[in-house]
């Protein structure tokens, strides 16, 4: 009897061992069903959004510099100063310009005198002409009375014509001198304008962001001396993938995360969708303004921008991880009697938090496999895993 017990024990041990191995093969081995999690179609509001990165820039920014080459004489403002429209910011060295201006003024004065002289000459010539004309008329009458010779009368007439010519000459001379005066005064004004142009004037109210050249430096025309921006016009010049840019419109709400304040989200609004896209990076520029411009911004600072589209109310959605692609077609693995079945679906909007709108293809009662432990195929046995 004792022998039987021992053999019975061995038999049981052996059977258990074999059974254990079989169970192991079925549960963990190649024949085990693939463990999956299960989701079902859900209904709710979707908040689609587009994400992009950009830099802080200013819509209105000015580069203040001279229009001509020269030496910078002085600068009255510095980096960080607020300036008013029309404020004198600095001056270029005029070099010989004051002297040239003075010479031009003297020249104008001189020509004014010449005009006076020419006017006097005209008056004189006119006087002479009238005199000669009267003489000629008188001699003509005397000829008719045969008191003077015809020759003498003609000579007087000739003198009158000469006096008329002289008058015209003097008048022309006066006109010429007047033009000279005009030219000289224009030249004077031109020099004056040049002189005024040496002053660097602020074109708008703004903030000086850079003082790039110091007084004494010689610079070419167009070199920026100061950079001024309008702080109210700060915005985020954002790069948006062209794939998503079609939905973006001016006025859409946005959230801005500045790199300097990574945990703070600022409200904003799409101000401009630029008409020129970058064909190399396949991105498009979208400018997003702040609802209220924060303090301490610096130009060129990186920012993450999320632009919110119109909310979709009460639509069907699935987690995007449930969507699989077979031969380019989107679909889901539906569990039917414990086995997988590929069901193509139509996809609508995708959100940044990984929800996908399902417009057609599955019913709310369908149980959909997600996060499979092994790649799924058609007709694979699956086992549902509880959520962690």
């Amino acid at each position, binding site marked *: 009897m004792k022998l039987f017990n021992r053999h019975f024990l061995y038999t049981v041990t052996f059977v258990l061992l*074999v059974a254990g191995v079989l169970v192991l093969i079925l549960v963990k081995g190649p024949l085990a069903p693939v463990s999956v999690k299960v989701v079902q179609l859900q209904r709710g509001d979707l908040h689609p959004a587009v994400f992009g990165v950009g830099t802080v820039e200013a819509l209105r920014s000015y580069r203040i510099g001279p229009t001509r080459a020269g030496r910078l004489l002085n600068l009255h403002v510095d980096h960080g100063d607020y300036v008013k429209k029309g404020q004198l910011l600095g001056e270029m060295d005029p070099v010989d310009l004051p002297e040239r201006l003075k010479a031009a003024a003297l020249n104008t004065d001189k020509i004014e005198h010449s005009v006076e002289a020419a006017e006097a000459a005209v008056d004189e010539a006119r006087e002479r002409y009238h005199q000669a004309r009267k003489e000629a008329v008188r001699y003509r009458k005397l000829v008719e009375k045969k008191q003077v010779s015809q020759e003498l009368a003609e000579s007087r007439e000739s003198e009158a014509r000469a006096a008329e010519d002289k008058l015209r000459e003097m008048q022309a001379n006066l006109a010429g001198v007047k033009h000279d005066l005009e030219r000289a005064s224009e030249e004077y004004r031109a020099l004056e304008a040049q002189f005024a142009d040496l002053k660097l004037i602020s074109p708008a109210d703004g903030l000086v962001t850079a003082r790039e050249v110091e007084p004494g430096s010689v610079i070419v025309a167009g070199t920026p001396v100061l950079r001024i921006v309008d702080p109210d016009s700060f915005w985020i010049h954002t790069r948006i993938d062209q794939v998503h840019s079609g939905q973006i419109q001016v006025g859409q709400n946005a959230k801005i995360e500045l790199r300097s304040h990574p945990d703070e989200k600022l409200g904003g609004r799409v101000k401009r969708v630029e008409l020129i896209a970058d064909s190399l990076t396949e991105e498009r520029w979208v400018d997003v303004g702040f609802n209220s411009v924060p303090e301490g911004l610096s130009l060129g600072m990186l920012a993450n921008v999320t632009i919110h589209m119109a909310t979709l109310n009460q639509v069907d959605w699935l987690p995007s991880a449930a969507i699989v692609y077979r031969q380019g077609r989107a679909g889901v693995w539906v569990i039917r009697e414990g086995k997988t079945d590929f069901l193509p679906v139509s996809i609508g909007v995708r959100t940044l938090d990984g929800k996908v709108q399902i417009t057609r293809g599955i019913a709310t009662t369908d149980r959909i496999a997600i996060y499979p432990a092994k790649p799924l195929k058609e007709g694979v046995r699956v086992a549902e895993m509880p959520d962690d």
Partner: protein
Amino acid sequence: MISLAYRDIGNSFGRYLFTGLGIGLLIGVTLTMAGVFRGMVEDGRALLTAADADIWVVQQNTLGPFAEPSSLPDDFYRGLLTLEGVDQARNIAYLTLEIGTAENKVRVMLQGIDPSAPIPRLVAGRPLTRPHYELVVDKRSGFHLGDVIPIHRHRYKVVGVTEGMRSPSGDPMVFLPLKDAQEIQFLKDNDAVYRDRKRLQENPRLNPAANPGLIDDVETAFFSNHRVNAILVNVRSGYDSHRVAAEIKKWLRVTAYPKDEMEQILIGNLIAMASKQIGLFLVILTIVTAAIIALTVYSMTQTKLKEIAVLKLIGTPNHLISRMILLEALGLGLIGFLSGKLAVTYWAPLFPKHVVMQVDDTLRALVITLLICVLASIAGIRSALAVPPSSAIGG
């Protein structure tokens, strides 16, 4: 008819079982070695699965992007799309680097992908949705959903977890948006950027005094990266990927590998040396294991020669004795195999590299084990039958 094997084992069951377990551990080691070998090949294939491409387009005359470096302009794919038979073409960038926090650095292979592309083998979280600053990591990297991982200049958030995504060298794979990968690949440290910028600004040809705006464009061109490592092409159904690859090679002057050739590169070239090493080791281990099993089975019979002589003396037929020896040998083989297989199943996940247990490998091992047991028992049976019954008394 009585089962002699059953009785014999019953007499010394403990010793028999422990002999079997010992053999089992040896078989386990051999199976593990086979698993490591298969794992290396599998790792190479995991990458191909992850890419899900019919054709790999790489730099001309290179074995890129894994066996050799490869670089292509990132707008090149548009040219590919114009070819007949090409359905999809997408850029991809690979780079290996150590990421993580200071106390937990993990060497990973970063794979820069189009953020709208689906990610295979996802077991938690979601695929990428933003074009920047998101990661999908492999479980083996040790990162979790929601972790924020700094890589170079930016902080990336883990949004998804995959399983079984590894590089051919066994590093866990991490997916991130292509533009970030390009930036990481190219991005220098700030000091280097500062020095380069200074150098550009001091070059009068690039920064002429008469054209102060030029330097900005030069810097933009200098500090940007529009290169990728490979372009993955999917062919339209009904087209042969070898022919489309030949067209790409012919007209676009780049190198294109169909999937099977890429697999050959990954498995044949990249891990050839390592797999040969492991393969040879596996062969030696198999021979050693076989020899030990054979010797164990043979000596088990040898220690029982006296009892066999007694059996013969009391008139036990030869076939019963032979059966006993054969069954005992097979039983030993089975116990060994089962315990070995069990051991492998439990210790395989502890290995740092992927260990793959294939069903056909396991069956092959079973057949080999049983065959060795049979062969060894034949030798044992021969000596048992040769033993004279008289030695039971005389010995």
